[in-house]
């Protein structure tokens, strides 16, 4: 597989990142080089190999569903950029 060109502008939209023209151009070049480097993986034979999602080996870690202490609303709101009446304030979502 040849290295596909990365569409930085489109991917930045997916990631909700506003980029300047200058940033877009720079990342286009740099990420192209990085993708060329990681293309080495295309040469590895992975036929029939299971993927590793995490190395811990634990599966289905369960616990009792019990009521426990957690944050108060005041603690949860303590770092909010804008809060009022015990709520996070955001710009209007529905017109």
């Amino acid at each position: 597989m040849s290295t596909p060109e990365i569409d930085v502008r489109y991917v930045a939209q997916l990631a909700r990142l506003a980029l300047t023209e200058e940033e877009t151009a720079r990342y286009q070049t740099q990420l192209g080089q990085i993708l060329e480097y990681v293309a080495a993986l295309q040469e590895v034979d992975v036929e029939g190999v299971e993927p590793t999602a995490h190395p811990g080996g634990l599966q289905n870690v369960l616990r009792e569903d019990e009521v426990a202490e957690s944050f108060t609303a005041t603690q949860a709101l303590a770092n909010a950029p804008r809060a009022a009446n015990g709520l996070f304030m955001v710009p209007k979502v529905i017109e």
Partner: protein
Amino acid sequence: MSPAELPFLGIAELRAGFRRGDFTPLDALNALLARIDRVDREIHAYLSFDAAAARKAAQAADLALPLGGVPIGLKDVISAAGQPCGCASRILSGYVAPYDATAVARLRAAGAIPFGRLNMDEFAMGSSTENSSRGPTRNPWDPTRVPGGSSGGSAAAVAAHTAFASLGSDTGGSVRQPAALCGCVGFKPSYGRVSRYGLVAYGSSLDQIGPVTKSVADAAALLQAMAGADPHDSSTLPAPVPDYLGALASARDLRGVRLGLPKEYFVAGIAPAVEQAVRRAVGHCEQLGAEIVEVSLPHTPQALAVYYIIATAEASANLARFDGVRYGRRTEKPDGLRDQYERSRAEGFGPEVKRRIILGSYVLSSGYYDAYYLRAQKVRTLLRRDFAAAFEKVDAIVCPTTPDVAFRLGEKSDDPLAMYLSDVFSVAANLTGGCGLSVPCGFDETTAPGRALPIGLQFLAPALAEERLLRIGHVYEQATSWHLRRALP
């Protein structure tokens, strides 16, 4: 002992001095504060600290506890209730942690005083600490050079003796690599040995909190306090925590220990001074009784590519939470919610973080997921098999921690790929879930005239073999004097 000498002590010596009544925890803390005042202006390991709160804790210290009265520095990515936890990022400037990370809560329970916020690459993304929004940290051995990263502040503070010990986080080598470049001990526990609760997430299948210390014994003491299952982190391993410090007491030589030398780690690209020091150290291990066996880890050339796909994919998902709504910086006068997301993130994240979010979003995006992310996860399996096969033949692997000594500030800032290559020997431990230890094994006296630069020796062992790894590292360290050299008077 004069107050000016106190900051040079390790944890064990501090504790002995407290118990004998030679000096108090407050004396030690005050000596440390005086030294920070004297040397940290140039080194810039600390982002902030609360001297008054620490003095209060030192006065109330319970010396019967295993770490009673010992101040421990924290990388700015680890939460301590009431302290800033900004991850050296503009997006989290002003953020104050509302709770203790489990590792921090356990250190407090063991009597330690979590003290000071240490500089780092923004969100632990980098290998030089130059990606900090608060300015770089300098290497105490040569201030024109980087301390490594991303836990550069944690390593520089220990090397400058402005911290008795510190915590860092290691996602692809971020504890071991700066420890090597600063001449300290850096330890990455197995995945799941120390809780990640309260550690701001970068790559969730790779991240581990680990100690940076002046000796292997001090690393064992911190691990002892932190390790073990935690209901707040379901990836923590339920295995009982052994007596790490006790295991060191009986370790005298390396007889009966088989050490594997991976042939793929000694290839072009490794600095001659590093290769020379590591080969000499391996010879030293042999003299101490170890049997040296050549092993092969065939997927080594692909490990770094696997790492940068998986780590950035996980990072792009983890950093989606910084949206300017619940915490962190919000842009001024946004034009709707989407504009608020896009501009808060654009203004809040630095260049390397943006680069990794874009790469990670790309390898997870529709049409590229199978070719990049899924394939990287499969090669990760092959890498794990390489290590499993090697560990059937040997007890631990010995290799360099980094391919080169500390580089100059700015030297690699414009070349992300060159920067990534400094993690080439350290990422495998994170990808496979094993543990890794870096100990000082020599100096490069040639690169910078009059300024010797430290070299790190790395030992790798399978998951949950911390005890074995610490014993091996301790025996080697105690037979050498590299760890005793001082970077600064």
